[in-house]
């Protein structure tokens, strides 16, 4: 494709039907190529072939997931639609948060690029999701990043993780977006397949929602932002949706994209000023599939046609062919539809911000997307056939044969430590384990303060951002997924991920209202993986209906596997909640001595898939903890009411590591100790079971009666564990009749794991 003598035009394609085309090298199947010929009534030109191949890739077309993702729309009830201003299918969903304000948020993956080049892969992942949010008409206000990598002691993890963290920080910090939360998870299945999922939150007024639609014949098409170079040509189809070995086929010229966060910052401010001046009628960011995607989606969604003069696109590399320009994934570009009389003011705003803008074409009423290159027609297609009506597969799915053996190998049968000394050592070992230890080596590289509206950030259960300085209204966001639970039972595991994110938001004092998901799985061509995917989506859709919060958008990432071995199925769930007054949020840390400490919820003997089973026994098997979404709702009602009444000093969700880890984190947050007696269960179960729908709270003793009332009103069991005691050097976790653990010793174990593995890596 790079050395060419003749421009392959539409006319030439009509005259030379039998020319052999490299459709297979571009990732198309033979029936897909036939379908393209049928749509066009001729062979595609090479530019058209480039567009179809990239837009019909798994990453852009969702061809394997579409039939399952429909469940999210089908399960919507009126109650769930109430706050939904824009649902699935746009760049991001938009939900009403009251007072005429709306919030848009979405999570997206940039997995394979982050393995190839961790810094740039992660950085451009952040850049992409921020442009999605911006394209809705919103000012981006916060980021979260959900990271999964191989074992902490693996050599490649020390390449990937520091690079990814520096990339997320380098890009996000430079944009002035506070990073308020996320996850870092280590598991052998992510070695060679790191997951980099970034979530962005934006705020707008109801009347500021913009959509990716080109309408109004005669309106101009403006491309603005960075010039187009050879970045990530074929990156979408190769890096984002094929197995890794395939990336080395030379025909695809795989290359990573390089980000310029300063350009993106200019693009944000410039675009917000353009929205403000009402100079834009439709807008789309350029991400995966670049111009191919933006032109076809805008024209298709607007039900219009579009004519583009491709040789007007400003180039950073003048040797690019038209096919490459159409596929380029150069970052920091946007496309706007602008009324002709607004073009001059549009250009003036861009000039003020030093952003290059070029009028490259117009909206037509032809229903065709036509693209010309130096006076010759190289593309003439129905835009919908490129953007929205790609192939849809009903892939075979099959519960893997080995699954029964996995499910019956329960962790509840593993040997349990007997005495206090052994329990004490286990609490310490878990606190120091890679998945439970202090995250500040990562999160201290992120600016969490910029914009001055961050009320809670990591290590809190949810990030809480003030969105209205006057009223104090805010939003809370959390992302979660325990992929081991999903491996043990994809249906229940996806619901457990949803339940955990929901609980984290509620425990912070916010009412959960919407969901975004990033579904990271292995190859959809493996029926076992496809079964996991279908079950997870079904679980998530059913769970959302029961909790009455809609999925507003998200992303699917397939082919996360090495050879035949897929990653743990990882449907990362982001839940967004709203809080009327952020001053009433509840933080996780004990605030001082003399507070009563309660465990809310019911603890069962549930150890399969737990951190205890993995850290102590290196075991994964059995059934995950029981899902009880009614109990989650009841707990959330108590937590939200308690926050509104300012009843609680602290509240912390119980999840990985159970009660033991919640105590560790609530104590270490502000260096406040606790003296408790465990309820009359097996102490190991009391400390390490990962039963759901539970929270650890502390409150002034004067409020205990009111908490009891609230709990009984909502049917939430509550157990008084003890009281907070001691601060400073003497503070400890004292578990009556079993052990005591000084916080200094605990902090030393908890806080050194990541630095000692990653410093000077």
């Amino acid at each position, binding site marked *: 494709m790079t050395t060419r003598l003749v421009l392959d035009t539409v006319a030439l394609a009509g005259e030379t039907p039998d020319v052999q085309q490299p459709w297979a090298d571009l990732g198309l199947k033979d029936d897909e190529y036939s379908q393209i010929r049928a749509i066009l009534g001729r062979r595609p030109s090479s530019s058209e072939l480039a567009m179809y191949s990239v837009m019909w890739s798994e990453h852009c077309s969702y061809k394997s997931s579409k039939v399952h993702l429909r469940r999210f729309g089908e399960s919507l009830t009126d109650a769930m639609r109430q706050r939904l201003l824009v649902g699935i299918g746009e760049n991001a969903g938009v939900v009403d948060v009251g007072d005429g304000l709306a919030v848009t948020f979405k999570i997206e993956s940039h997995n394979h690029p982050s393995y190839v080049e961790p810094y740039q892969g992660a950085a451009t992942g952040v850049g992409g999701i921020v442009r999605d949010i911006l394209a809705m008409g919103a000012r981006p206000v916060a980021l979260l990043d959900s990271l999964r990598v191989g074992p902490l002691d693996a050599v490649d993890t020390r390449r990937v993780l520091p690079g990814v963290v520096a990339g997320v920080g380098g890009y996000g910090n430079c944009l002035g977006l506070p990073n308020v939360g996320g996850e870092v998870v280590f598991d052998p299945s992510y070695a060679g397949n790191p997951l980099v999922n970034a979530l962005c939150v934006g705020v707008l007024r109801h009347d500021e929602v913009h959509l990716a639609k080109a309408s109004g014949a005669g309106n101009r098409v403006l491309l603005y932002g960075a010039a187009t170079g050879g970045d990530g040509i074929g990156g979408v189809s190769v890096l984002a949706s094929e197995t890794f070995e395939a990336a080395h086929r030379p025909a695809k010229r795989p290359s990573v994209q390089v980000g310029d*966060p300063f350009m993106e910052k*200019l693009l944000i*401010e410039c675009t917000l000023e353009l929205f403000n001046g009402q100079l834009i009628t439709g807008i789309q960011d350029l991400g995966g599939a670049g111009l191919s995607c933006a032109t076809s989606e805008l024209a298709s969604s607007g039900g219009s046609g579009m004519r583009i003069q491709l040789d007007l696109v400003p180039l950073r590399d003048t040797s690019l062919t038209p096919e490459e320009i159409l596929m380029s994934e150069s970052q920091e570009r946007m496309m706007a539809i602008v009324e002709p009389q607004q073009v001059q003011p549009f250009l003036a705003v861009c000039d003020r911000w030093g952003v290059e803008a070029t009028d490259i074409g117009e909206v037509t009423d032809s229903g065709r997307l036509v693209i010309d290159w130096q006076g010759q027609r190289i593309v003439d297609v129905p835009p919908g056939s490129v953007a929205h009506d790609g192939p849809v597969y009903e892939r075979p799915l099959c519960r893997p044969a080995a699954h029964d053996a996995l499910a019956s190998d329960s962790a509840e049968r593993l040997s349990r430590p007997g005495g206090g000394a052994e329990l004490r050592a286990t609490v310490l070992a878990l606190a120091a384990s890679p998945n439970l230890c202090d995250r500040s080596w990562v999160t*201290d*590289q*992120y*600016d*969490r*303060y910029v914009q*001055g509206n961050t009320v809670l950030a990591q290590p809190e259960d949810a990030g809480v951002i003030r969105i209205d300085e006057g009223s104090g209204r805010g939003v809370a966001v959390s992302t979660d997924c325990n992929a081991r639970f999903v491996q043990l039972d994809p249906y229940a595991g996806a619901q457990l991920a949803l339940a955990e994110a929901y609980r984290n938001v509620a425990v912070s004092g916010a009412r959960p209202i919407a969901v975004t998901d990033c579904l990271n799985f292995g190859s959809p061509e493996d029926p076992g993986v496809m079964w996991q995917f279908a079950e997870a989506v079904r679980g998530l859709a059913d769970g959302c209906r029961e909790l009455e919060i809609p999925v507003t958008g998200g992303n699917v990432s397939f082919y996360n596997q090495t050879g035949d071995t897929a990653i743990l199925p990882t449907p990362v769930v982001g839940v967004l909640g709203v809080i009327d007054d952020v001053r009433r949020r509840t933080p996780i840390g004990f605030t001082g001595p003399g507070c009563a400490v309660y465990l809310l919820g019911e603890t069962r003997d549930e150890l399969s898939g737990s951190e205890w089973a993995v850290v102590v026994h290196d075991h994964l098997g059995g059934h995950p903890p029981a899902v009880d979404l009614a109990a989650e709702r009841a707990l959330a009602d108590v937590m939200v009411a308690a926050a509104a009444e300012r009843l609680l000093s602290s509240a912390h969700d119980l999840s990985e590591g159970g009660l033991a880890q919640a105590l560790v984190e609530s104590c270490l947050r502000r260096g406040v100790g606790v003296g408790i007696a465990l309820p009359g269960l097996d102490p190991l179960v009391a400390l390490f079971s990962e039963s759901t729908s539970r929270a650890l709270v502390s409150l002034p003793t004067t409020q205990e009666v009111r908490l009891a009332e609230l709990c009984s009103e909502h049917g939430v069991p509550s157990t008084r564990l003890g009281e907070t005691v001691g601060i400073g050097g003497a503070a400890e976790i004292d578990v009556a009749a079993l052990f005591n653990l000084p916080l200094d010793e605990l902090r030393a174990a908890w806080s050194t794991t990541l630095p000692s593995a990653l410093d000077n890596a």
Partner: protein
Amino acid sequence: MRVGVVTFPGSLDDVDARRAVRLAGADAVPLWHGTDELAGVDAVVLPGGFSYGDYLRCGAIARFSPVMGAVTSAARRGMPVLGICNGFQILCESNLLPGALVRNDSRRFVCRDQGLRIENTATAWTSAYTLREEVTLVLKNGEGGYVANAATLQRLEDEGRVVARYLGDNPNGSMREIAGICNERGNVVGLMPHPEHAVNDLCGPGTDGSRFFTSVLSAVVAA
């Protein structure tokens, strides 16, 4: 009382700086990098961020911006100027303050709540603090290591021009734990940590930063 806050294209903490100015009781006046008009302000804050992307060196290009021409001459006439983080880098590049800021010795960006000791309360921006007072501000930078040659360091120490020093572990490799310095006259202060992120209890580590902004009010009234 009008305090100008400069916005470069890559400024990030300009909104926060304006909020801090307002909370201190002054009018916050946005100043655009492309103009040399200071709109009659009584003092100027150069906020944190990445001015012009800072790919060359932090603050290197900002130094040549129209607004910095005006700020530099006003500063030389005695107008109070506070450079925070990137603003500190710009002040050094503009030769309004000696020395330079280089990449953190950890080679990583660092964001944390940082203890400081205020060591000079005679400047336009620190008069509301007590000498040797320990305060907590937000530190967040990738290139915050203060360096200067031995003679310059000695002169800064002899003249009491180290305004603030880091407490505890040195977060970025700054020589002599220097977090902030001032010029001879005390009207120009450069500070690596962010006082504008510590002006209310809700969205930062307390309110220790507020007095940078109240200090300048009394400085201007006194002038």
